[in-house]
């Protein structure tokens, strides 16, 4: 008996590496710490009522952002481990297998569990406010999306200490990800972690399309809508088209692994190349899904801090729509070298290059917005301006990669690594940082410290260039990716050293940002205006942080940048602040079903990973039961009374008579 328990434990828990024992200890310690703090301060009820069951889009957004920062930390630690291994030739820090697991989890976590939730966080906290809406179209579904993401992310992260991490790269190419070559549970953790959170992403896509198309404030036509909301719309349309393909692809891989199927195996007539096509039909749009909202953020910030209307609003909108369409026509550029033939390669090379045109249009629009503007360089604007050269270099190396014959040289090299980190870090992550600094006062009611923010900005940027510029050169010198060590004779030492120093500086920059947040909370200066940047769009017309019902009175929109125009008219005496008549506000009730249902999804995933049907089947039945219970619940909303609205507004410093 004892022997079989020991045998089970040695297979179930990952053993044999001091890093993992360290992780085990820190996971146990942090769980104990969280549980005891919550119990000591008697916060369990508060946590459940105010956060875990909330359907308020702003709170859901904050939870997304928090989770994503944690994932940024984990993915960043993975990156530092890799750079530590590569800092000099013949390093003995990580074994080859461990290195494979780390670059796999680094990629998955950064794209799916860091960039996506950070993006959804910003969607959630800002889009309804920009639209002048009380909430997203489907608040319950929104909470469910978050908790599904959270379950999936936790499931994926668990693989580090239980069962073993996936090691087949962030897109899990077969045949290596098939059972024959990869029998452990790592690949199944990959499948179910992504599958569960991917369903959440798909639902978020549907939710925000409906929100943007159907629940805007009266008078806000599509062409008067703020640019960030436009970028969210185009991103969500791409989500709705791309994510079902991911769902199917992962399901097919699972059928191969679990039911002995032959979709992508080498035997039985399977076709591994089909997986590579399918995964990139999702994967390529995915990178535009995460970058489009960043474009929207830049557009908002550039206009606000140049004190000018955004240049070329319409061309901006069309550029985004064209990008989201073109993103579906370029997927084969990820495997130019895999024998598709010259005609196919030429088609995908040209469509790929075409994307540079609308992207260039956007960059020029930002520059023309700044032209003759009264620019001020607060942190959000600093990030935005810093991103432009960064993104232009990344874009140009992208065009180099899209030249099919040349790609035979760059393919799988560090040139490619440098390119996509440049567009994804400098385009997406820095873009979302800019958005966080910009909307922070709206979300939390106080500004972040400017001076520390500048330190973080410079450290991130210096670290970034130090880390990735040498990698372009290393790639041209022949250093390939997924390489865990190399010899002294290659002549790659110096540049790898510089690259690692850059990575460490970025790590320090992250810590400075955390310090910025802590410092700003300690020395908090409440923003009482609701509009600390003198900005232009509707979200700034209400107190910060926004009351739970967002707008005491629904705004009537008459123009683009409506809040800015209204401020101007009031200043010139053309308009008096409107006399308000309050009415009871219709709001959704909180619900515990989303978190409970996602927990059952977790059991389904975990059960299937370990082939424990006794866990998966009841888990799935419980998921269905949750849906039925929700379907039968007709008591899902209530009205906020006029007195409560008056009281809430007064607490935020606004007197409504």
């Amino acid at each position, binding site marked *: 008996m004892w022997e079989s328990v020991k045998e089970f434990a040695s297979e179930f828990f990952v053993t044999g590496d001091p890093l993992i024992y360290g992780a085990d200890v820190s996971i146990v310690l942090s769980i104990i710490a969280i549980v005891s703090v919550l119990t000591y301060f008697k916060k369990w009820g508060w946590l459940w009522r105010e956060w875990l069951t909330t359907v308020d889009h702003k709170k859901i957004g904050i939870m997304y952002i928090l989770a994503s920062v944690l994932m940024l930390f984990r993915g960043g630690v993975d990156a530092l481990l890799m750079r530590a291994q590569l800092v000099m030739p013949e390093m003995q820090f990580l074994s080859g297998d461990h290195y494979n697991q780390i670059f796999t989890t680094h990629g998955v976590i950064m794209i799916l569990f860091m960039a996506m939730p950070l993006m959804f966080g910003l969607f959630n906290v800002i889009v309804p406010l920009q639209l002048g809406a009380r909430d997203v179209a489907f608040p319950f579904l929104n909470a469910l999306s978050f908790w599904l993401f959270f379950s999936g992310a936790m499931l994926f992260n668990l693989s580090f200490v239980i069962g073993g991490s996936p090691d087949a790269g962030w897109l899990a190419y077969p045949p290596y990800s098939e059972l024959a070559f990869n029998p452990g549970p790592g690949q199944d953790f990959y499948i179910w972690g992504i599958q569960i959170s991917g369903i959440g992403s798909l639902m978020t896509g*549907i939710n925000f399309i409906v929100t943007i198309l159907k629940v805007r404030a009266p008078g806000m036509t599509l062409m008067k809508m703020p640019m960030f909301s436009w970028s969210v719309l185009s991103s969500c349309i791409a989500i*709705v088209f791309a994510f079902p393909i991911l769902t199917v692809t992962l399901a097919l891989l699972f059928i191969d692994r679990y039911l002995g199927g032959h979709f992508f*195996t080498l035997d039985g007539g399977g076709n591994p190349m089909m997986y590579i096509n399918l995964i990139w039909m999702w994967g390529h749009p995915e990178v535009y899904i995460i970058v489009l909202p960043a474009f929207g953020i830049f557009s908002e910030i550039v206009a606000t801090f140049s004190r000018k209307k955004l240049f070329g609003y319409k061309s901006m909108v069309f550029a985004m729509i064209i990008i989201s369409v073109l993103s579906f026509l370029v997927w084969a550029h990820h495997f130019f070298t895999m024998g598709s033939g010259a005609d196919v390669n030429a088609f995908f090379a040209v469509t790929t290059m075409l994307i540079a045109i609308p992207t260039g249009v956007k960059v020029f629009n930002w520059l023309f917005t700044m032209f003759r503007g009264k620019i001020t360089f607060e942190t959000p604007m600093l990030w935005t301006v810093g991103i432009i050269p960064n993104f232009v270099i990344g874009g140009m190396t992208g065009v180099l990669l899209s030249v099919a014959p040349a790609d035979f040289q760059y393919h799988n090299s560090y040139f490619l690594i440098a390119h996509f980190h440049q567009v994804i870090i400098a385009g997406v992550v820095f873009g979302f940082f800019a958005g966080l600094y910009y909307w922070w006062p709206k979300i939390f009611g106080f500004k972040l410290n400017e001076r520390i923010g500048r330190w973080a900005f410079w450290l991130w940027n210096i670290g970034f260039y130090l880390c990735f510029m040498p990698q372009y050169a290393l790639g041209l010198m022949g250093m390939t990716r997924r390489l865990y060590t190399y010899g002294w004779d290659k002549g790659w030492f110096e540049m790898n050293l510089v690259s690692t120093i850059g990575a460490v500086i970025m790590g320090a920059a992250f810590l400075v940002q955390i310090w910025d947040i802590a410092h700003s909370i300690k020395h908090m200066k409440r923003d009482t205006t609701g509009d600390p940047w003198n900005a232009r769009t509707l979200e700034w017309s209400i107190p910060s942080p926004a009351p739970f019902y967002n707008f005491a009175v629904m705004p009537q929109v008459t123009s683009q940048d409506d809040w800015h125009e209204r401020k101007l008219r009031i200043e010139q005496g053309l308009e008096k602040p409107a006399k308000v008549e309050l009415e009871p506000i219709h709001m959704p009730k909180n619900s515990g079903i989303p978190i409970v249902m996602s927990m059952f999804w977790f059991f389904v995933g975990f059960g299937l990973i370990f082939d424990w049907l006794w866990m998966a089947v009841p888990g799935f039945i419980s998921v269905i039961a949750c849906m039925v219970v929700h379907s039968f619940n007709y008591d899902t909303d209530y009205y906020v009374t006029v007195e409560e609205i008056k009281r809430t507004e007064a607490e935020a410093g606004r007197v409504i008579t």
Partner: protein
Amino acid sequence: MANVNAGHHDHHPDQEELRTFAFWIYLMTDVILFATLFATYIVLQGSTDGGPGPKDLFQMNGIYASTFILLTSSFTSGLAILAMNKGNRLALMNWLGVTIFLGASFLFLEINEFIHMVSEGATIGTSAFLTAFYTLVGTHGLHVTLGMGWMIIVIMQIAKHGITPVTKRKVNIISLFWHFLDVVWIFVFTIVYVMGVN
């Protein structure tokens, strides 16, 4: 709360209309899901790996029968909508019941077909063609199963609440879903079965 908007003029859009619109978008994602499965089937249909192929396995008489049954069920779900629009609650519930019965008959035939194929040694692991076949047809069957369960829940809610804006929307959506399954089946019938045996 039968009609949450009753008596209050706020600028909330009609929740039932929003849900119907969202369901159309969901259906679009389902179209892409099936399109992907059809693509994999078309790529792999010749990869029988020396095992049985479409001509050896498909028994078209059963397929004609199940196609006829499913098309009829789409018609009866339409009759349910007509009954609902006339405000005839009992007829609505009955026609939904008939639809479920026809769906169950379709499923019975499908499961029979699968059992027959497996007994001839054509399992999901036999060849890439069969993996793709079972996955595509099985996913459709899974959708039918889901639709039937869903319809039962809708019938229970009509029994409890009668024909209200909320239940009306629910009936409209499940009927939309059912028609969608029919359309998908027409593609399965054509691409998998008819083109497979010819």
